[in-house]
């Protein structure tokens, strides 16, 4: 750790407090909307939310712009680079745990709760409450179909989801090509592969949207169609949000690359985005197997 002599400690920064205000406005705005959604006035909430989002966007540009500038000025050394790497890896790990909570919920309802509701297992007499309920997965008939009418059918994994799997896996390959190109300083190829990755991500999202529309309109598979719809939309929905975020990050990286921000040696910003993209891909593979196929 001989390089410690010049570890960069930034001086005062206004961005953290701006970020806090933005986060606070965004979330309290959302809460205000939700509190008032039945009968109240939601406009205050929406205003707070919109201003909050605007502040967050401003902050992201400013803060990351700051970091990019410092990086370009050569203020960061190898040790700083390691701090960023640790930071990004543990952030991704926290995301993994967030998804684990929902995968855990899926396992629980599927292998424990639904069979119990159908009267299986020791020490349960649930048939007293749900005498007509039969457990199955995907769950098309909920215990109380009056409150939660079940879906008519579920998405066929071997149509769009399979195609989406191919798309995302391909995008994992293209981003790796981009990484190799960056190391060789082959600028045109970097742009090509990165753009292709983003395009694949966008097509994936388009298909997801199409699938959701079909689910809602054709299959009555919705958020409120019982636990199958709940787990299906929450898992795929959060994944879709992450793909969106990943695609935005990759777009920013592409723009920064075009402005000459990354060199063959120093391109952690690119790598962080790539890690994130791979993470999103892995989550999808788990989703494809556990949500769609099984």
């Amino acid at each position, binding site marked *: *750790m001989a390089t*410690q*002599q010049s*570890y*960069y*400690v*930034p*001086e*005062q*920064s206004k*961005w*953290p*407090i701006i970020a*806090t*205000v933005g*986060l*606070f406005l965004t*979330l*309290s705005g*959302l*809460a205000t909307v*939700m*509190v008032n*959604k039945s009968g109240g006035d939601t406009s205050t909430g929406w205003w707070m939310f919109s201003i909050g989002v605007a502040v967050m966007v401003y902050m992201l540009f400013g*803060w990351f712009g700051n970091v990019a500038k410092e990086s370009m000025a050569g*203020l960061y050394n190898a*040790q700083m680079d390691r*701090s960023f790497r*640790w*930071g990004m890896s*543990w*952030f991704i*790990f*926290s995301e993994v*745990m967030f998804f*684990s*909570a929902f995968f*855990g*919920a899926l396992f*629980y*309802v599927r292998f424990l*709760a*639904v069979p119990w*509701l159908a009267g299986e297992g*020791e*020490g*349960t007499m649930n048939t007293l*409450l749900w005498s007509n309920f039969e457990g199955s997965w995907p*769950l098309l008939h909920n*215990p*109380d179909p009056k*409150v*939660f009418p079940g879906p008519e059918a579920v998405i066929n994994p071997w149509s769009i989801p399979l195609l989406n799997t191919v798309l995302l896996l391909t995008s994992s390959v293209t981003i790796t090509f981009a990484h190799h190109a960056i190391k060789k300083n082959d600028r045109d190829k970097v742009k090509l592969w990165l753009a292709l990755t983003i395009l694949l991500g966008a097509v994936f999202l388009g298909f997801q949207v199409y699938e959701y529309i079909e689910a809602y309109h054709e299959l009555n598979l919705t*958020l*409120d169609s*019982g*636990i199958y*719809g*709940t787990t299906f939309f*929450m898992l795929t929905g959060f994944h879709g949000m992450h793909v969106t975020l990943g695609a935005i990050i990759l777009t920013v990286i592409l723009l920064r690359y075009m402005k000459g921000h990354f060199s063959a040696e120093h391109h952690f910003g690119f790598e962080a985005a790539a890690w994130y993209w791979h993470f999103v891909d892995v989550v999808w593979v788990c989703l494809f197997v556990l949500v769609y196929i099984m």
Partner: protein
Amino acid sequence: MSAVLGADAHHHHGPAKGFKRWLFTTNHKDIGTMYLWFSFAMFLIGGTMALVIRAELFEPGMQIVHPEFFNQMTTMHGLIMVFGAVMPAFVGLANWLIPMMVGAPDMALPRMNNWSFWILPFAFAMLLSTLLMEGGGPNFGWTFYAPLSTTYAPASVNYFIFAVHMMGISSIMGAINVIATILNMRAPGMTLMKMPLFVWTWLITAFLLIAVMPVLAGAVTMMLMDINFGTSFFKAEGGGDPVLFQHVFWFFGHPEVYIMILPAFGVASQIIPTFSRKPLFGYPSMVYATASIAILSFVVWAHHMFTVGIPLAGELFFMYATMLIAVPTGVKVFNWVSTMFRGSLTFETPMLFAVAFVILFTIGGFSGLMLAIAPADFQYHDTYFVVAHFHYVLVPGAIFSIFAATYYWLPKWCGNMYDETLGKVHFWMSFIGLNMTFFPMHFVGLAGMPRRIPDYALQFADFNQISSVGAFVFGTTQLLFLFIVIKCIRGGKKATAQVWEGADGLEWTLPSPAPYHSFSEPPTVK
């Protein structure tokens, strides 16, 4: 906007002036100070709520508040103490101490550090504001079990959910910073197994935080969806299960318990050797024990749910796994006692708090072991016995260790010695107050008094009165602590660099008060 610190950076910056210093700071000491003051403010607010509870429980019958408000008090007291007082206090200590202990110039990611802090006051402002809203604030207990916290919750639950999200973001970023600092910023020669135990325990705590705070975020997100978007995670009608909430919550909740106690173990392991003038006994086994406790904490969560009716095999597994935790915990206690054994002991205030920590935490550990026995837990569960148990591990555990740490390092932070006599008064008053408050709770719990009730049957009256008196003794004593700290900051006997005769570690090589930037040049550790 920026400066390079280092051998060639001759401009040693002091702090900026005015409020901007605190708003925009990137300095680990400033941020540590803000965390500590924030947590103390929360400690007083949460403590006041506890006093409302104890005042109502002073005698049978409803006297002071209505049951709805009583429930809001128990809920807010728990949330504020856990997320607002104990956790930020330890993050504050980590901020102040870890860079000094590992020989780093600052935390690894200083701007993010500032963000982690500032989220907290905003999050708690949001949480506390719910008390003034129509329908009242969260009233479903700090464990917020569905469906009481979803279908049957007051509308303000939405603010509660987003406040929890903000706290989670803050904790995760704080933890990432701690890990990056410890793994990447150590001075040359500071190998992992040479790190002070406080650093070790915080490293492990940070892993726990990153692993479980996202799960809590998942739990409250499921609540949000069930409340607003018609999902059925916790609704049997749609194929969900209210008990699912408890599984997700306690998967977070049990490691959370250790998040609040592992740094306390670290503090005790720094202080006891100093005042025993003898190295810590069994350093490696202390590290391994801490790691074992952390790992086990992921497979014991359902012991909070012994009465929900999980299948026998699950019940047995969680009982055995929970009992197993007694082994590494025991190792720690034995090591502390062995450190004291044949030492040369003195009992300054930090040592008094540390010794009380070991004794009273062990009592909490014993009741924990009793609670682990599933069949007996059917009688203990959700009674005041549980309340006694977790207050014994949290008050003389986590909070006493925070007091001990404050007295121990305060001279290093502000350059002055605190008033030893007043410190001892603070200790003895707290010690007496807390035992008066919480020891009788064991009895009323065993005799059958459920927790979270605003009124109780007559046979519980006497012990409840003692508890209430004790609570007021303990609560008012903490104002003395505030006075002692302010007095110390404003002046007093000048502290030497080493401060304590037996103190050992990098932070004691710095002058007192520690300079604004700790180690611009990394020290060499032999």
